[in-house]
């Protein structure tokens, strides 16, 4: 789950990372109550990146200009992401900018610091970055190593090392995938300030983080409706442009089935992994949600039952066909309790394919004649 900038900054402040004094507004009139004077910065609160380039950050020199800008910014959609609110902050005098983040490095299998002696950069494409793996349990010397590699000295060395340690504590305590300060500003008074921040909370850890309880629904605003609904049901749905709806058990097999559909000349309409061990109810929910997609002409269900029982799937199919007798289904069923499933479906007229390639070819040819 990605957080908005204003949320990330509140969390930074709780961990002793200084941020500019800011006020979040949802109506232009609220600017009148702001106490820190002019000029100030208005920043769109959106989930997408590329906000600055898209004009989502503006400066106002007085209230009139501020209100006009606020009205415009509040209605902005940036890269498909609607502006949730505005964060208003006093303009900061910048002596220097840095980049600082903590994330998990999947190749090394441990957290790492990523930093750069310049800020506001596209970190993926910068070649001036410094990375330091973080051993467990954490000790602050790792942050001092980082500060040294950034070429810092004196007071700034200590201040940056201290902030990096705080950022790591936050990252570990709240189970984050990413804690990023970009830019980390050195003010003309040699103080550090997190001018912009990004936090990604790990989805699997959210249930043990009381701070984020109930946040999920309000942070999935950019997901298409059916994908959001699936997520709430515990199903993994990703919608695509084609007309063959795909449901499998297991992520790898679902991707492989999509690839085969494409290789045999069809167009996958979605990825839906119903997960291992899904029962009749969950399988039925999965088929129904794919069926709701108006572009889908044919539903291809591919179940290789290891921990998933084929009879549970057959039960879901019987119920689905009762509700939707006209829908074209192509079903591959093999594995655990396959014989029971075959008996349950014997009278349905549904042909069962034991072989995946045959099922995919059938789905592709049916999709071509479907209107």
């Amino acid at each position, binding site marked *: 789950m990605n957080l908005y900038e204003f949320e990330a900054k509140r969390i930074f402040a709780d961990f002793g990372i200084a941020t500019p004094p800011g006020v979040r507004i949802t109506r232009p009139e609220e600017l009148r109550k702001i106490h820190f004077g002019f000029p100030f910065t208005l920043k769109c609160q959106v989930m997408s990146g590329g906000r600055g380039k898209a004009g989502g950050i503006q400066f106002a020199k007085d209230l009139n200009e501020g209100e006009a800008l606020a009205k415009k910014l509040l209605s902005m959609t940036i890269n498909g992401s609607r502006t949730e609110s505005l964060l208003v902050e006093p303009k900061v005098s910048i002596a220097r900018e840095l980049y600082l983040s903590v994330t998990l490095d999947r190749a090394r299998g441990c957290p790492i610091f990523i930093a750069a002696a310049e800020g506001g950069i596209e970190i993926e494409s910068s070649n001036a970055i410094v990375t330091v793996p973080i051993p467990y349990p954490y000790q602050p010397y790792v942050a001092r190593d980082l500060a040294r590699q950034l070429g810092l000295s004196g007071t700034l060395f200590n201040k940056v090392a201290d902030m990096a340690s705080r950022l790591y504590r936050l990252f570990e305590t709240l189970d984050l995938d990413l804690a990023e300060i970009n830019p980390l500003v050195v003010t003309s008074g040699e103080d550090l300030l997190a001018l912009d921040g990004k936090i990604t909370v790990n989805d699997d850890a959210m249930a043990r983080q009381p701070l984020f309880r109930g946040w999920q629904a309000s942070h999935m605003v950019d997901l298409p409706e059916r994908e959001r609904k699936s997520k709430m049901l515990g199903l993994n749905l990703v919608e695509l442009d084609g007309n063959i709806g795909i449901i499998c*058990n297991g992520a790898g097999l679902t991707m492989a089935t999509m690839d085969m559909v494409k290789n045999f000349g069809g167009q996958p309409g979605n990825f839906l992994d119903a997960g291992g061990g899904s029962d009749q109810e969950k399988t039925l929910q999965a088929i129904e949600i794919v069926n709701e997609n108006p572009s889908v002409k044919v539903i291809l269900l591919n179940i290789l039952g290891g921990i998933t029982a084929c009879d549970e799937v057959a039960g879901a199919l019987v119920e689905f066909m009762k509700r939707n007798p006209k829908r074209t289904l192509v079903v591959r069923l093999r*594995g655990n309790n396959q014989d029971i499933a075959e008996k349950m479906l014997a009278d349905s007229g549904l042909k069962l394919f034991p072989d995946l390639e045959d099922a995919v070819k059938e789905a592709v040819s049916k999709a071509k004649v479907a209107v």
Partner: protein
Amino acid sequence: MILVNKNTKVIVQGATGKMGAAHTKRMLSYGTQVVAGVTPGKGGEKVPGTDVPVFDTVREAAEKTGATCSVIFVPPYLVLDAGCEAIDAGMSLLVVITEGMPPQDTAKLTSMAKSRGVRMIGPNCPGIITPGQTLLGILPGMIFKPGPVGMVSRSGTLTYEIALALSDADHGQSTCVGIGGDPVKGMEYPEVLTAFNNDPDTEVIVLIGEIGGNAEEEAAAFVKENIKKPVVAYIAGQTAPPGKRMGHAGAIISGGKGTAQSKMKALQEAGIEVALTPREVAEKVSKLRSQPVHR
């Protein structure tokens, strides 16, 4: 065969839960020597539906049974604790089946395992099978046959699909290792590939990968330098859109990196045969077994 055989003595942590109990029974019926279950507070009981004794701690279970491996089925937030307990009790191999373990917990557990010289498979994995001998995890035993193909994979059901294609074509398997679909995990490709390279029972290696990260690219470079046996690869997710998590926590194309195309190219450049369908994996294995290629 690698890592496990018919003599391997196995503990199941979380054996009295629904998943744990069901799979303990399946493992026993496959022939796995499951010698103990561990559930705190249930010491003295039996794993439901079996004669396998349950202990309160891994240490006690290990002392009483001489087990060396633990298969972990406990809920996601308890895996770190359970894994550390198993390492401290002297287990040499952990197989973590649980899905949804927070990755920072995984990083802590793998760091402890490494420092103690303990091997760990998973989390979020189907486990490991040496066909005809033993099965640790949730793989459907009936799909696998003994034979000379070593398999290593990030996926569960896709591994079964490819094993089925191999078994149907009469290419049995020496051992099949599901390393799991999480971004941070225990054993990675190079460690498993090395074990297969040194295993006299393995003639051909099948590597199954998917989008996300660069483990397959690294595996390709590793094979080129270190692996003498022929390798056939399959990569899932050629049609996956960027920026979307495809089920597995680790299966995501981010910043244009981790695409199936990049992985397939790296594998081909390392002299590895890349198949486009599960059936083609079996066809390529047939070809390699009839006319071995030496690297």
